[in-house]
């Protein structure tokens, strides 16, 4: 333990903190403390009696007396075969943009979300949020009845109230009536709003997102004089400059962009592209960049000016010293270079970057401009700020809020809730009770997107139909129905509206075109046409607004999983460790290591932050690689009216948004709060201290095997020989992994993995079968980041097996290390002996305690009880399904795709049969970058990694 690790996961590890060291030396931290807690004699006796009784019940239950009922249908729904899954296409909408999904059903119940391979924004992958949509669908806390002033009302009362509004609309021509909804690409919604405007010319609507892309849209309008959509084509880009960019994590079409980016990251398979990132706070894009430069807001301003001067001409501006290299690289790759700017920058900066991209000549190759995909608000002058002003002035007498939560997520400075009180008629349509429903006069329950007909368009305009996956569980109302009621008392059916929208493409009757569009999940030839609109002449001369002169600024970023707080109720997303901080169940303020030293703060210290007179207290976390002149607040936490998973978890920084940008005042309070961070959980030990191996492209070109040189095969007493018809194995490409966590949630959904909550997370008892380790290389101020997914390695010489006293963990003939839950007596010896720390123990009956709808579980996977060890099975249920079909039909087993592999946007995982000739996994395993984790343990893992190569000339470069 004396040697300093080359790679480190937490600052405590780097500094060899005494508390940290004593903690990692225990296999089960805090267990000693739990056992030492005093227990009285009566309690001990009661526990012993209870366990004896349970053992007796268990003995009786083991021998299979038949129990329960068989309940066949009255009429079998067509197409459903009992015991077989069905798949129906749908789409996941994020910021208005659709990414195709396929929902897996068992006996009519949705149980899993998969990506849609036919959809251009999915290509078969999903985001973690799309996976977690399942819990939102089954959320027992969803609204189920109409209320007026918080009292239950019938649905006809609501229809009557809307009837009165209809009369008023007809009398006033729509003046004073405003519809507030999120960003939308739905053509059906646009058609309906158009029909409303034709009937009531003065009606207004606002598409508003708390964390929107307004700056990007306005920037495009500045540069081109029209609403257009920019579609990156990263597969053609040789050099990419990403400035505070969300290209790989949140930009429209990010799944596809990530796929195209990663396709050119492994030098054994493709010519590498090069990614430069300039950013104030670490992001996924920065983490995978070849070179990452840290620049606060003022420095970035200077960078933009220098870039503009160099690329667009004009008086030269002195930029940071490293910028010349970037500029010359961009210039040297004209036509294959692309600059991407994040949505937090001003519209003028976007216009300027668009002009630079035109100059670099990449239009048509590395990006195209398409006709707009999202729909505009009713008039350009309408924004949330002007709406609130109108509400205050009494110019709005009816406000219809559809699937939006402005009371929580509007900038705190606007005080939306106060303005809402001045509107006579407010109706909020929301799937769950939230801050806005509490403040609205009328509240109606909204259907979940899986319960009605709708449509949406992808980042390139490709349209998808969204079909009901189930009948409404909670008597929800469809938004189209509500809007339809404003036009006539008997609005057309939802399905008819959607059919009407697409009748030109798909015909007016149910025929092959409609069925095919539903089956494929996309409407053919519906992509937006490319626009040939030229850049406006003055775009290159756009003046950037001056950055804040304050020494330190507070930056706001959406939480990667809760977004603007709309997923705060989702326990999967709350518990998911954030990619870089590895923190769950909270949003501490992020501070750079140097600033933390200066303010003598450490992780978990609570500070009081004051912005423009508004004060709040929040814990802090140190973010290695963050700029010293900014604090970063993550939005989406601190919901005041949400479900048990989301209410009062973390801090609501929306309160501080929209306020004047003076330097925030930070004062240490002396209090501390424990952060549920997994960054130091499951620490592995390797003499070399390098787990996620990486190197420079120049080294690879000189010696492709330079990273696996040291792995001498060691002799073994036992030579395990595969006997079965297949030898399952996996190869993980660290070049492709962007750390997005989609695989982790997919694994959780597929394998019925419970959430444990913050308290148990603090005790290192999370249940993830698959985790993504994040390693830092280099100094805390500017480290390089390496992600490494770690799951059960299915070692051929598995150390867990010989130590199990009851044979609960065994090898099968195909090389799977299987876990027999019913044999397990919970000694935890196996976990103790596992060098990779991938085994998880059910300290409590987590599966029962999470109170998740039983219908949402995967019926193909055992739900584990208390006291049982569990771990990755290589998706045994999927292997078994393929095996059974193959044996039944007398063929070789078809490709098995594990849940993590299916969800991965970048194809980092390759699973398959190592024994099969020409299998991709065998080829990758034989590749020059392939290495085994902790190879010196001689466990002969079936999971291997391909080392991470950065496209740089010198090894281990870390810039400041």
């Amino acid at each position, binding site marked *: 333990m004396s040697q300093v690790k080359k790679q480190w996961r937490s600052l405590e590890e780097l500094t060899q903190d005494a508390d940290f060291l004593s903690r990692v030396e225990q296999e089960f931290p805090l267990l000693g403390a739990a056992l030492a807690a005093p227990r009285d004699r009566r309690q001990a006796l009661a526990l012993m009696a209870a366990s004896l009784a349970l053992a007796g019940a268990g003995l009786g239950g083991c021998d*299979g007396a038949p129990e329960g009922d068989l309940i066949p249908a009255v009429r079998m729904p067509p197409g459903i*075969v009992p015991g077989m899954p069905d798949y129906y296409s749908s789409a996941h909408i994020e910021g208005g943009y659709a990414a195709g999904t396929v929902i897996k059903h068992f006996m009519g119940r949705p149980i899993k979300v998969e990506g849609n391979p036919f959809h251009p924004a999915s290509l078969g992958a999903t985001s973690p949020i799309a996976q977690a949509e399942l819990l939102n669908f089954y959320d027992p806390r969803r609204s189920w009845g109409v209320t007026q002033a918080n009292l239950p009302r019938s649905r006809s009362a609501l229809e009557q109230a809307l009837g009165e509004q209809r009369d008023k609309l007809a009398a006033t021509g729509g003046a004073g009536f405003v519809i507030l909804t999120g960003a939308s690409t739905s053509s059906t919604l646009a058609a309906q709003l158009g029909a409303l405007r034709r009937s009531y010319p003065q009606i207004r609507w606002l598409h508003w997102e708390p964390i929107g892309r307004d700056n990007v849209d306005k920037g495009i309008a500045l540069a081109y004089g029209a609403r257009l959509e920019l579609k990156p084509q990263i597969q053609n880009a040789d050099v990419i400059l990403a400035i505070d960019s969300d290209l790989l994590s949140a930009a429209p079409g990010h799944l596809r962009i990530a796929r195209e980016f990663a396709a050119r990251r492994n030098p054994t398979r493709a010519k590498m592209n090069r990614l430069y990132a300039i950013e104030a706070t670490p992001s996924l894009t920065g983490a995978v960049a070849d070179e990452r430069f840290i620049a606060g807001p003022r420095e970035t301003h200077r960078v933009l000016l220098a870039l503009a001067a160099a690329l667009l001409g004009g008086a030269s501006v002195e930029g940071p010293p490293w910028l010349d290299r970037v500029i010359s690289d961009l210039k040297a790759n004209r036509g294959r270079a692309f600059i991407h700017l994040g949505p937090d920058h001003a519209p003028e900066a976007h216009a300027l970057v668009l002009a630079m991209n035109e100059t670099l000549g990449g239009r048509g190759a590395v990006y195209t401009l398409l006709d707009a995909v999202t729909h505009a608000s009713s008039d350009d002058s309408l924004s949330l700020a002007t709406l609130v002003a109108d509400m205050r002035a009494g110019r709005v007498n009816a406000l219809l809020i559809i699937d939006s939560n402005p009371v929580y997520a509007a900038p705190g400075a606007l005080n939306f809730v106060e303005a809402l009180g001045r509107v006579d008629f407010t109706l909020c349509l929301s799937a769950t009770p939230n801050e806005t429903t509490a403040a609205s006069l009328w509240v109606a329950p909204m259907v979940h997107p899986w319960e009605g007909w709708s449509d949406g368009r992808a980042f390139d305009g490709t349209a998808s139909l969204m079909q009901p996956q189930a009948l409404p569980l909670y008597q929800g109302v469809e938004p189209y129905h509500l809007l339809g009621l404003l036009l006539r008392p008997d609005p057309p059916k939802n399905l008819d509206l959607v059919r009407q929208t697409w009748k030109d493409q798909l015909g007016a009757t149910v025929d092959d075109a409609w069925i095919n569009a539903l089956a494929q999940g996309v409407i053919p030839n519906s992509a937006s046409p490319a626009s040939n609109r030229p850049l406006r002449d003055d775009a290159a001369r756009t003046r950037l607004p001056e950055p804040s002169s304050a020494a330190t600024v507070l930056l706001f970023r959406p939480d990667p999983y809760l977004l603007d707080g709309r997923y705060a109720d989702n326990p999967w997303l709350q518990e998911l460790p954030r990619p870089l901080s590895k923190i769950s169940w909270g949003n501490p303020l992020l501070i750079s290591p140097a600033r933390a030293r200066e303010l003598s703060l450490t992780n978990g210290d609570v500070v009081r932050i004051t912005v423009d007179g508004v004060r709040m207290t929040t814990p802090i976390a140190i973010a290695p690689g963050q700029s010293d002149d900014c604090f970063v607040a993550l939005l989406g936490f601190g919901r005041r009216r949400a479900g048990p998973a989301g209410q009062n978890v973390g801090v609501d920084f929306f309160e501080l948004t929209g306020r004047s940008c003076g330097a925030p005042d930070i004062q240490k309070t002396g209090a501390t709060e424990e952060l549920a961070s997994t960054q130091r959980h499951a620490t592995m030990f390797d003499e070399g201290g390098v787990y996620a191996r990486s190197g420079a492209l120049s080294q690879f070109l000189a010696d492709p095997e330079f990273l696996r040189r040291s792995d001498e095969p060691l002799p073994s007493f036992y030579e395990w020989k595969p006997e079965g018809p297949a030898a399952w194995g996996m190869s993980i490409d660290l070049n492709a992994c962007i750390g997005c966590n989609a695989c982790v949630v997919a694994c959780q959904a597929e394998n019925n993995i419970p959430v444990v909550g913050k308290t148990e997370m603090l005790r290192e008892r999370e249940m993830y079968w698959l985790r993504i380790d994040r390693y830092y290389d280099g100094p805390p101020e500017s480290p390089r980041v390496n992600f490494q997914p770690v799951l059960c390695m299915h070692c051929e010489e598995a150390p867990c097996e010989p130590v199990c006293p009851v044979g609960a963990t065994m090898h099968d003939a195909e090389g799977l290390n299987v876990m027999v839950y019913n044999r397990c007596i919970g000694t935890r010896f196996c976990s103790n002996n596992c060098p990779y720390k991938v085994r998880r123990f059910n300290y409590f009956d987590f599966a029962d305690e999470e109170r998740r709808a039983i219908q949402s579980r995967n019926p193909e996977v055992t739900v584990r009880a208390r006291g049982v060890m569990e771990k990755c099975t290589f998706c045994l249920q999927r292997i078994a399904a393929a095996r059974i079909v193959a044996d039944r039909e007398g063929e070789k087993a078809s490709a098995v795709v594990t849940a993590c592999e299916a969800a991965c946007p970048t194809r980092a995982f390759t699973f398959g049969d190592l024994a099969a000739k020409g299998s991709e996994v065998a080829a990758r395993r034989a590749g020059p970058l392939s290495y085994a984790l902790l190879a010196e343990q001689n466990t002969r893992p079936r999971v291997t990694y391909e080392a991470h190569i950065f496209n740089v000339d010198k090894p281990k470069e870390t810039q400041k």
Partner: protein
Amino acid sequence: MGSVFRPAANFWASLALLLLALALVAFSLVVWLWPQSDSARRMNWAPAQPVPFSHQHHVSGLGIDCRYCHTAVEVSANAGMPPTYTCMTCHSQIWTNAALLEPVRNSLKAERPLVWRRVSDVPDFVYFDHSIHIAKGVGCSSCHGDVANMALTYKAKSLTMQFCLDCHRNPGPRLQPKDKIYDTDWTRDATTPAPEVLLAQYGVPQRNLTDCSICHR
């Protein structure tokens, strides 16, 4: 003061201790053996069903194939239970007023499913798949007994792990010819091909059928 215990007390005390020990052993044996008994496993026991359905009448008497009602048995893990609609294909024409069939008619009328009691069951952590067993020559009767001759359906086999393993260790002798899979009173006779022949014919896969991962997930 005389002694408290007479000499005979030694004998009674020893006897009491012996009896106590015997009682403990007996109790342990009961706890151990009772769950393994046919009674505890509900062998040969026909639970009360909403309709006293007779496989004997429908299969042996009328010659209806198993798959007419258990439609998914060849393609799915579940064999499938017939929806009420299947019963009514015939019973809307014959025995239309039989009192016994009142629950079936009510089910269709009220759109409320019939609720049958389970006869055969394996624990939830066992993933039995009907389709692969049917495809590889394991007949219905191997696990369900001679259903075609059951007036009321009862559990004929123990369906314990031992029962499964007996066959998984040595499937050959229990395999049935392809045309006899659904014949529940089939028994091996002189005309039956040898186990090795059947194994080859069905292409029973060369995997270790006793691997944990074959049945448990």
